[in-house]
């Protein structure tokens, strides 16, 4: 999880990923940020997150993102 926090904070230095739980609903993450984060996740964890996975519930919090990453890692 620490690796994820580091990755997220690197992509979006202005967002408090440890506290926020409504990243999409409160418009803290833009589409540009999401694409950047997904690119980094796919590369760092060697997974494949596609456009169909881009649902608010997968990106509203660091925990939700971590769950998506683990889900994809288990599938692969």
């Amino acid at each position, binding site marked *: 999880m620490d690796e994820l926090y580091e990755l997220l904070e690197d*992509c979006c230095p202005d967002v408090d990923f440890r506290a926020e739980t409504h990243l999409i609903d409160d418009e803290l993450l*833009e589409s*540009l940020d999401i*694409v950047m984060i997904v690119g980094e996740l*796919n590369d760092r964890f060697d997974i494949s997150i596609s*456009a169909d996975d*881009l649902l608010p519930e997968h990106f509203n919090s660091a925990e939700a993102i971590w769950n998506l990453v683990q889900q994809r890692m288990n599938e692969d």
Partner: protein
Amino acid sequence: MSINSLAFLGFLLAAVVLYYLLPKQHRWVILFAASLVFYLTYGLRAGLYFLVTIVLTYGFGLWLDRLSKIRPAGQTREERQAEKQALKRKKRAVLTAILLLNFASLLLLKYSASWVVALDQVFHLSLPVPSFLLPLGISFYVFQTSAYLIDVSKGKAAAERNFLRYALFAAYFPQLVQGPINRYQDLAPQLFRGNDFDWANIQNGVWRMLYGILKKALIADALAPLVQSVYSGFYDYPGVVSFLGAALYCLQLYCDFSGGIDLVCGASELFGVHMMENFRQPYFSTSLADFWRRWHISLGEWMKDYLFYPLALSKSFQRFSKWCRKVLPPELAKRATPCVVTFIVFLAVGVWQGPGLSNLAYGMWNGFWMSLGLLWVPKAARLRERYALLRKDRLMQVFGILRTNLLVIVGRYFSRATSLMSALRMLKHTLVRPGFSAVSAEMLHGLGLTMPLLIQVGLACAVLLAVSLAQERGVRVSRWITERPWGVQFALMFLALLLAVFCVYANVGYTPIAYVYENI
């Protein structure tokens, strides 16, 4: 039938009365009949073209739905996987075919004539220029039906089986002229369920329509001749007048487009159907990215969901990302794909605006600043840490609004100009010959900036600003009015109607102008 005409008001009133007179389960039939009548007032040929589009997208929607529901029946896991892959390929082929057909018709009808003229100018081929009828709101319904087909193929929406109901979704008359581009999942249930009569919907709808008329008639149409004079004869005036013209065009376009959207959303609310919002006080934006989240929201959302994400996360761009990580510094590499795809999306937005290089340049202008903004994020964060001045929220907000509006105004040099060369000349004229001292009251008067116009636009803009500030604070103005005592409501309604009837519909010195986005 123009939506800013008396005929439309009469038509709307009749449709609303009939809608609530019918039993709930048949109410959608009135919406369908009204949409049919509305479209046919624009001519039979346009109606026939639209019918072909509806039949095709309806049929392909059902086909995609059937493919989405097939479950692999193989005996072994490998067989089921192979079947699944084959189905996926077939679904993709069917979807690609109908999307190509849908967008090819748009390109053919909207762009072919301009492209042939451009080719002819370059290669002198003496090609015959095609002359097609441009069906009303074609860009809007092509985008809306395409979104429906993609959602059905992904299983996000179930295909509509009743042809007439599907036709109503595609041709619902308030959205036909200039959007918004509604999503099937949001719009269809509201259209088909038969809404109860709700006095609040009628009140909100009427207030919103009046607000739309105010924006369109008292601001947009009043400024249109002045803006036209500046763009067509900018060489006759000092450069600063070109800038003023572009700034006034920003105001005109906003009041024209959002005024039209207010009118149709208000009209739709009379039936209890709430369409997607298309604007959220765009000129209060603190960055260009913020502006594009507040301006033409339904197009922005469409571009994001159906072009930006699929392109950015496609295999090709994933490979491009990997390559960037090898050759670029990490900070730049992770931003490369979003930057390039953003640029491509804004090129598409430029093309969507219309044929011609000036529209393409408009897309490039926005794409360039949006991409640069993304690259600037880490640097801006470091600068904020270092300089306390940059951490003053209010100051940065004002600076952000000014900077964003400047970028938007310069962008409008391109989107309004008749050609790319004309836009570039106008921009050069602004920078090289600003001529602040040469501007005089007589000159502005000659342009049409007269005292009565200033008073009319000034008063209307004061209302616009007050409403926008309230909306920015989350106040729903129509609801706020309906919560006032009856006397206040009556006085406000009387004033608004007086304005609408005597300034707009009674044609006292006012000729309604077609909406800018009507022919897009």
